[in-house]
Structure formats: structure tokens, C-alpha cells
């Protein structure tokens, strides 16, 4: 009985792999004709009117929205590190320390 189920699972897995591989190869086969580098060529031509460094221009000017999400990933990573490993203890302690420090000396800097 269990052999039958295992063989059935193996068959389904093999079928799914074949379908996936066939569609992937079909996509790769005509891929060269699908690529149209039009806007990339245009931007490479006119981008250096802004600044000489083309990498920074692509990252910050042409794909600036991408970079916004990419830099928000770092915020999320820091947040998750503090949440998971600290479980809020660091946060509570520092808020208390800040509050105590600002209570001690008011009228100073900050």
C-alpha cells in the first residue's frame, strides 16, 4: 500500500518536473528575440549628460524606485534582528535610559 502511494507521488513529481522543464526550455528557446534593449540604449546614450558614473545613475536615477525598496529591506532586516534576538529588551532599556537622561538635565543641549 505505501509502495503504491510512493510510486504515485514519484510519478506526479516526475510529471510536474517534465512540464516545468518543457515550459522553461520553451521560454528560453525564443528568448533572444524577446529582448528589446531599446530604452536601455537610449538611457545609456543620454544618461552621461547627468553625471559620469553610469552605475550610480542606473541605480539611483533610472531604477530609483527599485533602490527605495532595496534600502527599505535594510530597515526591515534591522527591525527583525532587534525583534527576534532582543525581544524588545534593548528597546525598553534604551527608552528608559533616554528618558532618565533627559529627566536629569533639562535645558542642556538637545
Amino acid at each position, binding site marked *: 500500500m505505501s509502495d503504491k502511494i510512493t510510486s504515485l507521488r514519484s510519478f506526479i513529481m516526475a510529471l510536474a518536473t517534465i512540464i516545468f522543464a518543457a515550459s522553461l526550455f520553451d521560454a528560453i528557446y525564443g528568448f533572444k528575440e524577446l529582448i528589446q534593449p531599446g530604452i536601455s540604449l537610449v538611457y545609456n546614450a543620454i544618461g552621461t549628460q547627468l553625471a559620469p558614473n553610469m552605475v550610480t545613475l542606473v541605480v539611483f536615477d533610472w531604477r530609483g524606485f527599485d533602490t527605495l525598496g532595496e534600502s527599505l529591506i535594510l530597515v526591515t532586516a534591522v527591525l527583525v534582528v532587534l525583534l527576534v534576538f532582543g525581544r524588545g529588551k534593548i528597546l525598553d532599556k*534604551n527608552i528608559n535610559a*533616554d528618558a532618565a*537622561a*533627559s529627566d*536629569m*538635565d533639562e535645558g*542642556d*543641549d*538637545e
Partner: protein
Amino acid sequence: MVALANIVIGPIVIALIFGFIVGTRLHLSEENSFKFTIGAIIALIVGGFLMAYDIGQFATYQDLPIATVFLATIFGVFIGSALLGGRAKGDH
């Protein structure tokens, strides 16, 4: 573009501000670290001049033959540390 006698001022001002921000957290007279006396600050600034001359015309490549942004940052760090650095409260 603000230029004063072939020196581009904008990046220098921004470097001073940025260095000031970082320098406000720098305690130059911490107990267990390097004691920054006046001589040490002067020595570091002279070393900064040497480094800036070796870096070359970094920021815009057409003004002075030293990296003005680098020097401005060092000055900004020291100014910020001298004004606010010893008194920053709420340490980590």
C-alpha cells in the same frame, strides 16, 4: 553651481555638515581610549592633508589638487566633537 576661485563649495559644505553629524557622537576624551590632545589633533590634520594630497582631486577633478571633501569631513568631525561630542547624553 557655486564656485569661489575655482573651488566648488557645495560638496565641501555638505561634507562639513555630514562630518558634524557623525562628530557629535564622538567623545574625544574617553577614559580608556586614545587621548586627543591639541598636538594629536594637529598631527591628525597634517596626516589628513597628506592623505588628501595622495587621493588627489577627488570630488570634482577640476579644483585644488587635494581632496577637499576628505579634509572638510575631518574638520567637520572635529568641530562637531568639540561642540557637542563630550556632552551627548543617552549612550547606547
